[in-house]
């Protein structure tokens, strides 16, 4: 298998889907001539022309609404919101239209649209450009929310998102665009609602997604190499629907869990995961589940302050050491 960057995989997958289905088209700010702020759509305007790669005005409310209408009429729009932070302007279209129409029209009018958008902090983009707002959307019935951590998963999940008849929020992470990974050949898809055990372990489970899952995998692999602890890492991949079963099975095995998330702790994705585990794995829990999340402040611009506010490998490792059982499991 080839090692490809996540950026390249997204570009390849969009191109393939556009070739596969002529109803698939792209919309967004600066995605055509400028080829995208993060170059995800590089070369696509040239290849597919302005009818299928549409540069929009700076008007999220307008073009997300346009995408909802296009999807209702049978097209498969893939919208890029330049950063996750700008999605606030389009929330009415997402919440009250995209997520509702399929239901409210008695199943007669699917809304097969995808919103791709990069979130996350760590680039010194400050408080209004570094947020992780996924919990808002994962809360809404009628939406599907996925957040891959590897190029291989990104390809499979993006295919599913585009071919799916529901509105999908496809979360990218600024710090993962250059991450490389193996990408399987062939036209595979990854069904939503299937978490992935990235690494097996026995002492405790770290549950995560997106960039934090990648960090968790690195930390766990290092601890295993150093023969310290055997940490299982589960990437939920899909926030809605959430694969409770895989999480519960992992905790049944290890008895202890940490949710590692980049969003704020209060009312965050971790809260939902912890609630699910205590409901379905109560008799298997050997310790309270920990949440390792970002400090609850608007993210500062200053690099040292930004680093202090964002959670990372160090915070995760210290939580692992806190939570680890006294004796290692054999």
């Amino acid at each position: 298998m080839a090692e490809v960057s996540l950026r390249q995989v997204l570009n390849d997958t969009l191109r393939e889907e556009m070739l596969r289905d002529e109803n698939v088209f792209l919309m967004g700010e600066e995605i055509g001539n400028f080829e995208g702020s993060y170059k995800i759509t590089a070369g696509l305007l040239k290849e597919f022309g302005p009818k299928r790669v549409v540069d929009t005005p700076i008007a999220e409310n307008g073009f997300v609404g346009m995408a909802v209408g296009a999807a209702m009429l049978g097209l498969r729009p893939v919208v890029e919101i330049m950063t996750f932070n700008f999605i606030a302007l389009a929330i009415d279209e997402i919440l009250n239209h995209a997520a509702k129409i399929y239901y409210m029209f008695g199943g007669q009018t699917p809304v097969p649209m995808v919103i791709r958008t990069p979130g996350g902090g760590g680039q010194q983009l400050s408080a209004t450009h570094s947020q992780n707002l996924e919990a808002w959307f994962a809360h809404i019935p009628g939406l599907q929310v996925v957040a891959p951590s590897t190029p291989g998963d990104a390809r499979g999940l993006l295919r599913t998102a585009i071919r799916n008849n529901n509105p999908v929020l496809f979360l990218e992470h600024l710090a993962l665009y250059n991450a490389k990974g193996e990408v399987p050949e062939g036209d595979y898809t990854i069904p939503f609602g299937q978490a992935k055990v990235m690494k097996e372990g026995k002492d405790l489970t770290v549950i995560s997604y997106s960039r934090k899952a990648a960090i968790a995998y690195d930390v766990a692999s290092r601890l295993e190499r150093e023969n310290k602890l055997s940490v299982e890492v589960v990437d939920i991949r899909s926030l809605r629907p959430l694969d409770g079963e895989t999480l519960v099975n992992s905790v049944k095995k290890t008895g202890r869990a940490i949710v590692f998330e980049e969003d704020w702790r209060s009312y965050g994705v971790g809260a939902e995961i912890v609630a699910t585990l205590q409901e379905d794995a109560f008799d298997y829990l050997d310790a309270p589940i920990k949440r390792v999340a970002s400090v609850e402040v608007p993210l500062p611009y200053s690099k040292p302050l930004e680093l202090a506010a964002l959670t990372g490998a160090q915070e995760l490792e210290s939580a692992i050491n806190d939570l680890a059982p006294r004796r290692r499991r054999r």
Partner: protein
Amino acid sequence: MAEVNMPRLSDTMQEGTITRWLKQVGDEVKRGDVLAEVETDKANMEVEAYDSGILERVVAQEGETVPIGQVIAIIGSGAGTLKGGQPEVLVTTQSGQTPPVAPSIHESAAVEQPSVFAGISAQQNGVGVNRMFIKASPLARRMAEEHGIDLLQVKGTGPGGRIVRDDIEDFIEQRTISPAAAMQPQPVQPVGAAPASISEISMADAEVVTLTSMQKTIARRLTESKQTVPHFYVGNEIDMTEVLKLRQELNVALSEEGIKISVNDLIVRACALTLEKFPEINGSYKDGQFVLHKKVNIGIAVDLPSGLVVPVIRDANTKGLRVIAREARSLVAKAQTGKLTPAELDGGTFSISNLGMMDVTEFVAVINPPQAAILAVAATRKTFVPIDDQPVIRDIMHVTLSADHRILYGATVARFLKEVKHLLQNPFLLLV
């Protein structure tokens, strides 16, 4: 709100039985007040309050046996007083370190867990069910249930003393390695319920007696001793004629002072002087090392209706007969009234068990670990002894030393007995 915990009153204490509550629920309690009397494996002790307030709740009732560190009562402002709320409920086990000797009180779990207390009163059904509230993870609880483990027997090492999976696994492992040791503190079989192993004997014709703390300790420690200490035995016969004469003379002379020297006091004195020369016999085998004690502290076994105690005469080698006699008499009296303190029971380096008054020809005793030896003293009897090929009647006493073969060898023990014999047969040596 403060928890009163079962204090650890001696090194070997694992649990205590509440014999009497001196304060009742609702009583005002001052720091230092005696709350209750507790029977330990060694003595009856008093539990003092370490906080002032109102005795809100008595958790362990009279007659109840409770592991050390477990809550026996709650002292608070009076707001939570629960009169007549019996039987009450145990809240946590081992909620922290128990100090080595002093009674202890923890300000912790009760305050953090109001919901636990709220739940208790709601769940009381008043039919004498003692529901145990123990801090344990859900997983630990499930495992304990699956393996038939009583969580009260498991020490929690998780945060705040929570019992976690590791603790259950440790417990299971220990139980597998040494079933006797791990199973020992199990609750005593209730009357009428026959343990499977003796089911062939009809229990209908038997009376089943619940052991006191002391009896449980004796059973445990002596089993441990016989199973782990390789005993060997060396006997000797000592001509007591001269020492008995001396004793009679001394007692006549000391009668005005009210001092009476017993045969046993003379044996204690003889052993104490001899032990100075035989440090191994005054030693212990511990973790692959010989520990040679600098002090000679001699325990004397005292028979009680409920068992046996071994109070200790400290620095016996430095004490004359007069002092030994006085101390021994006081210790025996305290033993018989259950007033011995742990300090009077701890620290023995050698023991003497004397059944001479019971007309015993000879016997062997079980070593009292970590000591290395115990001297069993039988009755002194008029016996024909050949002296210059003529039969002469002398007072002969049989003694047997039980010795730990890990630290002691036959020749050492033989030499020790020979020296004790020499002192008792030349009793003026006991006077210097």
